[in-house]
C-alpha cells in the first residue's frame, strides 16, 4: 500500500467498545460502542478538528490514538510506526513526540507541586539533558507560552483559568512534541481569554511546525483553528473535509443540523430549523443502519438497514450517507 503521509498521524478503522455492568451488583451487561470504524489523518504541520456532541466518541478517539485507552481494533500509525505494535521502548520514545493538552488544566496539574517541578518532570523521565539544560528548557517553555519565569516557583492555585491553560500547554511543549492532542482546550475559558489561547496555539503551530488533533464541540473554534475537520456522530465519522467547505456547505444531514444549530452573533440570522426533533440516542443502544436515521429529515428505507460507507466527493470530502452514494443528490 502506498503511504502518502508517512509523516504525521494516520488512524485506520479504529474501534473501541466499553463493556459495562455484569457481575455482582453490576447491573445488566451493556456494550457502549464509543468508536466504530474511524479513519482519518493528521498531516504534519496541520490541525485537524474532531467535532461532535457529547457521547459521540471524540474524546475516546483522542485517547485511543495515544493508547491511553487501548483500542479493540484498528491501526494508529505515527511517522510510519504502528503504535499498537510498538515495543515499550518505542512507545516511550513515541510518547515524547505526542503530547496531550486537557480541557481543565487545574485537575491535570498536581496542586502540591510547583510549576517548575511539573514542567521538569517529563524531562527527567525521558532523561532529556543535564540538570542545567532541563532547567533552561522549562524556562524557555514558560516564556514561549507568554508567562514570566517567576511563575515557575509558584503553585497551580495561584493562577487564573487562562494562565493554567498556558501552563498546561507549556508542559506539553517541554519535550518538543510533533503532534499535540488537545481535548477541548479552550471550552472552560471566557471568550476574551479563549481568543488569547487560540492565538497562542496558532503561533506555536506555525513556529514549531506542530500538528494538532483538536477535539471540540464548538464549530466556531474549529473554524478558526483547524484546516480540516471530522464530524462525529455516535462513534462514526459522518463527514470529513476542509473546515471552511464543510461548514459553509455541509453535505451530511447531521453536519447540516449541527451547523444550523450553532448560534451566530447576528440577530438577522436567527435559527430557523426545518427539523430538529429528538436527541442523540444512547451509544449503548445505537440505532440500526445509519446512526442518524432516527433524526434525519431525508431518511430512506435503506438507512434503517445499512450503515453507509464514507464516500469520497469531488471537493476532497468524505461523506458517509446513502444520499451521496451515487454522487451529489
Amino acid at each position, binding site marked *: 500500500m502506498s503511504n502518502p503521509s508517512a509523516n504525521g498521524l494516520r488512524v485506520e478503522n479504529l474501534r473501541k467498545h466499553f463493556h459495562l455492568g455484569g457481575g455482582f451488583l453490576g447491573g445488566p451487561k451493556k456494550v457502549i460502542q464509543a468508536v466504530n470504524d474511524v479513519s482519518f489523518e493528521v498531516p504534519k504541520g496541520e490541525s485537524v478538528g474532531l467535532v461532535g*456532541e*457529547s457521547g459521540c466518541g471524540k474524546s475516546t478517539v483522542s485517547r485511543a490514538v495515544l493508547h491511553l485507552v487501548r483500542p479493540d481494533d484498528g491501526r494508529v500509525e505515527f511517522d510510519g510506526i504502528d503504535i499498537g505494535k510498538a515495543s515499550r521502548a518505542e512507545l516511550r520514545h513515541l510518547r515524547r513526540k505526542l503530547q496531550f493538552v486537557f480541557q481543565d488544566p487545574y485537575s491535570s496539574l498536581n496542586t502540591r507541586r510547583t510549576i517548575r517541578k511539573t514542567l521538569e518532570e517529563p524531562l527527567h523521565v525521558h532523561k532529556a539533558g543535564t540538570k542545567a539544560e532541563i532547567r533552561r528548557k522549562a524556562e524557555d517553555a514558560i516564556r514561549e507560552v507568554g508567562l514570566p519565569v517567576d511563575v515557575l516557583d509558584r503553585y497551580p492555585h495561584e493562577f*487564573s483559568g*487562562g494562565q493554567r491553560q498556558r501552563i498546561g500547554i507549556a508542559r506539553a511543549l517541554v519535550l518538543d512534541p510533533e503532534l499535540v492532542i488537545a481535548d477541548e482546550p479552550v471550552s472552560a475559558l*471566557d*471568550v*476574551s*481569554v*479563549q*481568543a*488569547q489561547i*487560540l*492565538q497562542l496555539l496558532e503561533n506555536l503551530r506555525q513556529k514549531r511546525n506542530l500538528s494538532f488533533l483538536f477535539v471540540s*464541540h*464548538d*464549530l*466556531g*473554534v474549529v*473554524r*478558526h483553528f483547524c484546516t480540516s475537520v471530522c464530524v462525529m456522530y455516535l462513534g462514526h465519522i459522518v463527514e470529513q473535509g476542509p473546515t*471552511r467547505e464543510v*461548514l459553509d456547505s455541509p453535505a451530511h444531514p447531521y453536519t447540516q*443540523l*449541527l*451547523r*444550523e*444549530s*450553532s*448560534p*451566530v*452573533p*447576528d*440577530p438577522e*440570522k*436567527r*435559527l430557523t*430549523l426545518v427539523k*430538529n*426533533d429528538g*436527541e*442523540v440516542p444512547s451509544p449503548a443502544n445505537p440505532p440500526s443502519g445509519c446512526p442518524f436515521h432516527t433524526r434525519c429529515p431525508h431518511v430512506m428505507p435503506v438507512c434503517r438497514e445499512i450503515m453507509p460507507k464514507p464516500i469520497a466527493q469531488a471537493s476532497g470530502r468524505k461523506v458517509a450517507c446513502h444520499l451521496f452514494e451515487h454522487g451529489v443528490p
Partner: protein
Amino acid sequence: MTASGNPLLQIRNLQTEFRVSDAWHAAIQGIDLDVMRNETLAIVGESGSGKSVTALSILRLLPMSGARIARGRILFQDRDLVGLSEREMSGIRGDSIAMIFQEPMTSLNPTMRVGDQIAEAIVIHRGKSWGDARKEALRLLDEVKIPAAAKRMEDYPHEFSGGMRQRVMIAIALACRPKLLLADEPTTALDVTVQAQVLALLNELKTAHDMSVVFITHNLGVVAQIADRVAVMYAGEIVETASVGDLFANPVHPYTEALLRAMPRVDVSAELEPIPGSVPSISGRPEGCNFAPRCQMREPRCSRHPQLSALPGSPGRCARCLVRVDQEQAA
C-alpha cells in the same frame, strides 16, 4: 420589538456585596435595569461580571452570611423586593418570579418522581389538591414537549437526558404562571442541537404565557438568537444597554466591541482579536473605568469613573465610556 407601558421590573442603583477576608466588596455596583412586559432581556458578560449575582439578588437567593444587598431598590409589581420579609419573598419565588439554572440535575430532587416535583409547586403556591396538580403537571410536560409525557411523569430525574431535564425545570418554573422568568445560563450545559430546541421552546412559551424573561448568558451567539434587549456587564457594572439589533450592528462600548472581535464565529473566517489581560477580581478593581487597563481606546480621562450615559438616537441606548459617548454625541 414592542415593549410598552410600565416596566414589569425596575432595578435602581442596586449594590450587592460579598465579604472577602473581613471587608465588604461590591460584586455588583449601582445596577439600573428595566424589564418590560413580554420582553426577553439578555444579560451578557464573562465570569465574574456579576450577571448571576444580579439574578440571585432579585430573588434574594444570596447566602445569608457573607453576602448582602447594600443599597438599591428592586421594584416588581409596585413592591420593593429588597425590603420584603423572607416569608413574603417565598410567596413570590416560584410563583410570580421563577428561575431556571444551568445544571438541572442539581436543582431537581433525585429521589422524587418528576410529575410530583412539578405538582408540588402548584400544591404549595396555588393550594390545589394533588390530583388536580398532577393533571396540571401532565399538561405542562406536554407543553414543554416531553414525548410520552404521561409515562414520563413517573420517572426519576436520572432517567432523563440533559435536555429533557432542562425541559422539566422549565415546566416547574411555568407551573404557577410566573410574570417573570429568570434563566441563568439555561443552555450552557447542553449540546448545540438541544440548545437550539430549548431556545425555541423558551421563545414560544414567552409569547404564549405573556412572560418576561431575563436571560443570563456568556454566549453572544445565544444572545443574538433570543434577546429583544441586551445589557452587557463587565466587572460588576452594566457597560452598555441596547436593543439586540443595535448592539450587534453598532456596538458602542469598547468592551462590547472587543468581545465581538474575540469571539470565533462559525459563519465567518475573520482574524480573532484577543482582549489582553483578564477581568479584575472583586477586590482588585481599578480606580477609574473598570475596563481601562485592557482598553485600546484608553485616554487620560479614563482614570475617572464613567457613568452609564444615554446615547443620542435610539431611546434606551446607554454606554459607560467617556470617550465613546463623546464621539457619539459629536456625530
